[in-house]
């Protein structure tokens, strides 16, 4: 438990410090590198929260693909060294962000969360881990899932079964959305034929 707490606070300080660097550092290239650090520490949080699959996806998509895209874009535009200047809205933006932050913190602390009890927590972590790992029968029995039907339910409730089961319609919709967005960005970036106006 102590080890978990230490890792949690290190990750939290790294994530928040790097996020502050992203918005405050003037050099856009360094800001993009700090953004990668934020992505990696969020992946660490995902591992601590039983979301191993999401942690891998986070490293592949955010720390891999999206950060490369952003760094490419930073290199292709000029004024990299002093590109991250504030605009006139700085004071209202700070006030608005601080107001929102205080509201969110008050809600998070004040709400009476319907927390999962300690003994159920083990079962939940087994089910959430079953998205990426095989569960041993001994582990299931140790966590209190003794009957065959309960164990089968815990094994079958992985992330993939939900994605192509209950959530198949949003899954297909989001794939069409991704295709449309990629075609749209290709159209936007296509070089204009000579002689066309605008």
């Amino acid at each position, binding site marked *: 438990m102590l080890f978990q707490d230490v890792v949690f606070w290190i990750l939290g300080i790294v994530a928040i410090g790097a*996020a502050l660097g992203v*918005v405050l550092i003037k050099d856009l290239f360094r800001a993009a590198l700090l953004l990668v650090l934020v992505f990696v520490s969020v992946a660490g949080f995902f591992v601590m929260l039983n979301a191993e699959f999401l942690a891998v996806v986070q490293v592949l998509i955010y720390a891999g693909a999206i950060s490369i895209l952003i760094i490419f874009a930073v290199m292709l535009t000029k004024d990299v060294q002093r590109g*991250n200047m504030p605009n006139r809205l700085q004071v209202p933006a700070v006030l608005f*962000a601080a107001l*929102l932050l205080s509201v969110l913190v008050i809600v*998070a602390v004040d709400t009476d969360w319907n927390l999962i009890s300690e003994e159920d927590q083990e*079962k939940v972590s087994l089910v959430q881990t079953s998205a990426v790992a095989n569960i041993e029968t001994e582990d299931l029995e140790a966590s209190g899932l003794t009957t065959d039907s309960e164990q089968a339910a815990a094994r079958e409730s992985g992330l993939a079964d939900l994605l192509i089961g209950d959530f198949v319609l949003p899954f297909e919709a989001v794939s069409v959305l991704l295709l449309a967005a990629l075609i749209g960005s290709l159209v936007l970036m296509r070089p204009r034929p000579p002689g066309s106006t605008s």
Partner: protein
Amino acid sequence: MSLEAMLIIAAILFAIGLYGSLARRNALAVLMSIELMFNAVNLTLVALAKYVAPFALDEDLAENLSGVLTGQVFAVFIITVAAAEIALGLGIVFAMYRNTESVDLTEVAELRN
């Protein structure tokens, strides 16, 4: 490590991203700040999926175990939408840069008149 600490860290990340997307001139910095906010929301969803019981769980845990994964499924969808958003956003930034030789959002006035 508790639910509240997790939520507060996600809220701080979201507020930083909000400040960055409101107060920066560079379009790429604004896109980066939006990515920060996406990450904060994902963190919130996954933390709630771990710590908070869905209503169905109160009655019979064993029959409703898949309910504890719904938050992670939502996070998968948000990551996909974020990828689509960054592709389109960079496309718009490049189109803007090609037309005006600048990525400064305060100088863009093409839609104004």
